[in-house]
């Protein structure tokens, strides 16, 4: 197995900072990723690929959670309704 050093505390904080900047941009532009490409690239360059994936999923989850809290739960329509 390839030994890869874990990011240091500084590297972690730099990654989280880049992520937060990117997310703030998305918040400002209603999640329009095309308006935040530079920050997206900075985020991807500062964080391991696995962490980018993890944070992308985290953002989706946080948005979904917010939706549930504000709009309530609406079960998806069943494919074949009787």
């Amino acid at each position, binding site marked *: *197995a*390839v*030994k*890869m*050093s*874990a*990011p*240091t*505390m500084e590297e*972690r904080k730099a*990654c*989280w900072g880049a992520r937060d900047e990117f997310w703030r941009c998305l918040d400002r532009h209603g999640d329009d990723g095309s308006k935040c490409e530079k920050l997206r690239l900075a985020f991807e360059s500062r*964080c*391991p*690929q*696995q*962490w980018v*994936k*993890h*944070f992308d999923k985290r953002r989706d989850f946080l948005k979904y959670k917010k939706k549930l809290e504000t709009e309530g739960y609406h079960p998806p329509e069943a494919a074949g309704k009787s």
Partner: protein
Amino acid sequence: LLDHTGRRRRMADFHGQWVLLYFGFTRCPDICPEELEKLCGAVGRLERDPALPPVQPLFVTLDPRRDDAAAMARYIRDFHPRLLGLTGSPEEVEAAAHAYRVYSHAGPPDEAGDYVVDHSIAIYLLGPDGLLLDYYGRSKTEEQIVQSVRQHMQTYKPLPD
């Protein structure tokens, strides 16, 4: 298990001490650093009370293939001077995780060979008898952990001989 200096340790070594224990891995994106900050922050706050015995912070890896003693030594430096990192063979780590009912599962590796380890999240409080007295999930704050540990210390009764 092996500590981060390469020394063999057994849970029995910690009998007589209060322990706060966390299972995670060093390539963890955010949860492990946050939980360890919380755990070590609680240890630091409790330390400042001279009436209380010190609490031993322990961090056990769920990723022994990558987290050898050297990796653990590098990682724990950022948290607390007395934080002990523990690793071992996959079998040893699995036995330790099993003993505390910790769920863990390594995800698929990407092209770089990197992967994350999905795992249950809890900080365990062990008393001087080595018994599990309490556990704290993500939603517990540092303050809540400090108060809980303090309470356990006050009401603790050693097992009869």
